[in-house]
């Protein structure tokens, strides 16, 4: 009995990672109806960037966040203004194909720069520390911290979106990107800000993920799929729902892994498809697809 509780708790905790993967994706879709197929690859890019800094300057990966987060934000802003803004419009194809192309480019760029080897950011015992709530029930402190960080990030985003002027401008732009211009606000700039935010969270996600699990140039798509599943399970347009969705996904994977280690990822996909079948709009939807 306890071991099943333990499994479910582990699953919950992993949800924090998936929620972080998903938040940036959700933000970009919410504001611009744009799905960045390279999102997972940008997360991995951040992890590799941290790796490079760690190897070059011998500093802790967590310290790298100070540099990685603003750099990723700047990258996101530039990417949106220079490339992605040009793909926006009624046609679904351009953003999909351009971001898909970006995904391939990033994966191969990482392959060239770092080799195909699996990597991990050195965090030592930080990632294995745990406390025992009950005999047999271990709470990993690192994933717990990540879950708390994910909740904090979502909470901060909610406050930003609902209590600040810029946040109101972003919400308005997601409603009507043409009329926002009649308010004297440049919609191209707002899109850039949204992507900058999304990339900042992706940078955070990359470094935190990189310290906990192995990553390689080819791991990007996996992160994209997990983030996407968390969003759909939780419901579109609801960041808190995404957090819950990530936890549901984590639990499904944990259960699958317990039955057979090879079933882990598959179990998550099946849970996703099951929810898609039973509740197509997700558990807590707030916006139409």
């Amino acid at each position: 009995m306890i071991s099943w509780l333990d499994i479910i708790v582990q699953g919950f905790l992993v949800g924090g990672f998936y929620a972080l993967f998903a938040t940036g994706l959700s933000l970009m879709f919410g504001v611009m109806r744009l799905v960045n197929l390279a999102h997972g690859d940008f997360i991995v890019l951040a992890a590799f960037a941290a790796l490079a800094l760690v190897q070059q300057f011998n500093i802790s990966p967590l310290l790298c966040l100070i540099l990685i987060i603003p750099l990723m934000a700047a990258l996101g802003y530039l990417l949106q203004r220079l490339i992605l803004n040009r793909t926006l419009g009624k046609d679904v194809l351009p953003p999909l194909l351009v971001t898909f192309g970006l995904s391939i480019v990033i994966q191969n760029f990482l392959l060239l720069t770092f080799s195909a080897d699996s990597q991990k950011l050195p965090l030592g015992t930080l990632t294995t520390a745990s406390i025992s709530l009950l005999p047999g029930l271990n709470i990993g402190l690192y994933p717990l911290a990540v879950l708390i960080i994910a909740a904090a990030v979502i909470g901060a985003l909610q406050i930003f979106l609902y209590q600040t002027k810029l946040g109101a401008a972003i919400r308005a732009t997601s409603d009507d990107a043409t009329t926002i211009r009649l308010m004297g606000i440049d919609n191209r700039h707002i899109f850039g800000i949204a992507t900058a935010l999304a990339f900042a969270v992706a940078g955070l996600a990359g470094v935190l993920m990189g310290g906990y699990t192995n990553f390689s140039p080819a791991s990007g798509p996996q992160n994209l799929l997990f983030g996407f599943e968390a969003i759909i399970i939780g419901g579109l347009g609801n960041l808190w729902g995404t957090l819950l969705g990530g936890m549901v996904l984590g639990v499904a994977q944990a259960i699958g892994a317990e039955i057979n280690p090879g079933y882990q990822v598959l179990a998550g996909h099946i849970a996703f498809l099951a929810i898609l079948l039973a509740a197509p709009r997700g558990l807590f939807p707030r916006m139409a697809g």
Partner: protein
Amino acid sequence: MSRNFALAYAAILLACAALPLLGDNSTRQLGLEFAATLTLATLWNLLAGYAGVVSIGQQAYVGLGGYLMFALVVFTDMPVLLALPLAGLACGLIAIPAGRLVFRLRGPHFAIGTWVLAEVFRLFFAQISALGGGSGMSLPIMSILAISHSRPDRLLLFYAFAATLALGANLLVFLLLRSRFGLGLTAIRDAEPAAASLGVDVMWLKRIVYIGVAAFTGLTGALIFLQNVRISPDAGFSVNDWTANIIFIVVIGGIGRIEGPLIGCLVFFGFRAAFADFGPWYLIGLGALAILIMLLQPKGIAGLLHRLLARRTARPGFANSKINRAL
């Protein structure tokens, strides 16, 4: 599409098909690969370029077709040449419930959903040890020899099959577009809401095309892995081989145009011959090219050629709303 154009295109296609027949084994091998790729590209173009169904998970059916064919041969001792079409058919049948699922998603989410589906297939087959599990398996020698004991003969047969598939796919698209069915598709492509308001059952059309393409794709996949003799989950359901390359081919060649896939394949194979030694650089170049084309010349090389030819023979332009691009 003008009659002259259709005739010219058919001629080029037939010439491409006949060429490898004159060559040696390695030319036929290349020709087979070209034909299979062209078939997949033509089918993806039909799906995305004409029916507006943007799938990045067609590898699901390439691998599924391969595995089903292998399963039929291994488990029921079925002759390979019978297993092939059955595998394709089975893919079409599986696409019915699968389509039901993924069509619950819209637009870009649908695209990712198709990818998840492919991953489910990949992970599923990796768990079936009777089919080689994670490392895959080879076709039993006896089944191969049953086709013919001569490798060159087998290659010729496979090549002929592949060429037939490619020609068939192009013919299918051609006939489809001229039929009432096809008019509905073109209407969807040009203006979906308008098409819907005119009574074109958009959803039904999309599903039918999705299922049909799945069956055809499965058949092609079965052939690919037949001539490969070996299949594995990673090879069968590879995103890079069966989606990324195919998408790049169609985009570069010209999406939504019947000649797009052929042009794209010629460019792709040419590039590969020239640059494949550069490994990841080659893929970076291909990806960057696809991005540039999508940004600057979304109609691809075919679109560019049409524009240049149209200038020679002045034709009235059509209204093309650019409102949404007034960023």
